[in-house]
């Protein structure tokens, strides 16, 4: 039977945090991301469901906290019609930051010609870049009329689930053509989000996006990727050690059914294709490996079990 993994984040002291990693490896879990800030460490990990109490116990013993992070392993594109400097700070900045709290990796995308009403457009390149992400979250501003009548044009050509956010709280998702979810209370601002209302709106957003991800994971579990993306990520890290020397902030980004490897495609794609699993197949056989639209990085999209015919 396939192991069910649960995403968790550990927060605690640096001292003896290696024991947590050792235990995680012993039970067959995966460390997705580790960040050390002075004496604190934050680790995103995928833990086998049955072994969560073990890690929880050790975390408690080390006076750390282990909390569920529903968005770990999800890459979200936070799309704003514009990221113009004279309108800083954008609400999209706070949105992207807040989505990272429960573990998501976010990419902020400011459309080149997205501003305005009549003139707003999205570009083929931008659509391709957004489509590389698991979820696209749009920040559509304050005006009800724009959100309903004009901005849906920006959602065209995006294949994944689309979350629209905006100022008005009373818009029904049916009114926005192409959106799968609408979250209100997140309109334009000219200060960082800090009031109770604003923070509540962000909490609601995280909760709703978490539910959407849950739904997507359920859907994905019907025909799962041929190899667990976290496992593919670990193998890439072990067999292509250059990735640890990449200067990108998170050199390996876990996606719902793939991995983004932040190394130049032309130099390293063959190495990534040749990554071997213990059970036999190479990554190139069970995944589609393409050049990413983001800085020519390597995008690994693992094929579903139904297409490959087996699961490892």
């Amino acid at each position: 039977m396939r192991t069910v993994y649960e995403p968790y984040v550990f927060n605690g002291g640096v001292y003896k945090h290696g024991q947590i990693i050792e235990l995680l490896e012993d039970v067959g879990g995966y460390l997705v991301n580790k960040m050390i800030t002075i004496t604190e460490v934050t680790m995103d990990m995928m833990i086998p469901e049955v072994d969560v109490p073990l890690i929880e116990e050790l975390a408690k013993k080390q006076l750390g906290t282990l909390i569920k992070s529903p968005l770990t392993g999800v890459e979200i594109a936070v799309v704003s019609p514009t990221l113009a400097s004279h309108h800083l700070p954008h609400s999209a900045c706070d949105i992207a930051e807040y989505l990272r709290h429960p573990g998501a990796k976010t990419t902020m995308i400011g459309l080149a010609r997205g501003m305005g009403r009549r003139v707003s457009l999205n570009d083929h390149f931008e659509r391709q870049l957004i489509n590389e992400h698991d979820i696209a979250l749009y920040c559509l501003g304050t005006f009800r009329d724009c959100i309903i009548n004009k901005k849906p044009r920006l959602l065209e050509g995006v294949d994944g689930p689309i979350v629209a956010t905006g100022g008005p709280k009373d818009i029904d998702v049916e009114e926005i053509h192409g959106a799968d979810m609408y979250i209100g209370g997140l309109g334009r601002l000219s200060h960082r989000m800090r009031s109770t209302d604003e923070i509540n709106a962000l909490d609601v957003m995280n909760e709703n996006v978490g539910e959407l991800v849950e739904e997507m994971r359920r859907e994905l579990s019907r025909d799962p990727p041929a190899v667990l993306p976290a496992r593919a990520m670990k193998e890439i890290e072990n067999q292509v050690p250059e990735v640890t020397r990449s200067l990108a902030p998170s050199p390996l980004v876990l996606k719902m059914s793939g991995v983004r490897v932040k190394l130049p495609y032309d130099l390293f794609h063959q190495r990534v294709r040749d990554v071997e699993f213990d059970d036999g197949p190479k990554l190139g056989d069970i995944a589609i490996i393409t050049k990413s639209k983001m800085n020519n990085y390597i995008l690994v999209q693992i094929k579903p079990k139904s297409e490959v015919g087996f699961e490892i």
Partner: protein
Amino acid sequence: MNMEPLEIFEVYSAIHSEAETYRGITADVMSDLRLASAIGRIRIEIYPQNSLYMMAAILRDVEMPIRISDMAVVDTAYEGGVGFVKFKVEREKYMPDLTRFLWNKYTPANVIQDDRWTILVRAEEPAKEAETLPNQVIANPSQNMHANMIELSIRGVPEGFRVRYHTFKNNEFLFIASEDIIEPDQLAHAEKMMENLRTAVPDITVIKKADGKERREAKNKSEIAAENGEGQ
């Protein structure tokens, strides 16, 4: 016209919550640019369906150009066998402008600040310089105000309204932004807005919401009153 700071601050949009949002944005930007005390009356109208944003503002009395004689007494001094031009500063507010002017003219090496209120400048002919310097203009608050009002408009306007028009005369600032060509009737409407603003009578009973400090004070007062009420 003698006005209180922000005695009129109105934002109109067909949907009340949108107007409130833009009121907040404008207040934030005004506070950033320290314009809250300089603007007497301001009215903004937004018509998203027509991609139109209009702002009329009347500024409070703007200061005239500042000369050195307005902020310091210029004299000569003789110290250590060298002649200096001596500035005795009276209004410290324009100190950066004076220092900038002197640095540009005499180079930093020749400008010596003895203490907080005294500047000595090494010059070839101190007496002659001390005669001409007091008339020198070193700051122009109205010019800064113009730049700040433009900044306020650009930061406040909804993104994408790139066709812009503005006028600034007699302390009255008018700004229109749209996505399309600005029509004469829209201009006439904006001018009418300004006319209404000029003749409006401010409602002094309304708590001003623009300035964060005033809002906080009003809130504190109401909280204290509520606590006292509960105590009794």
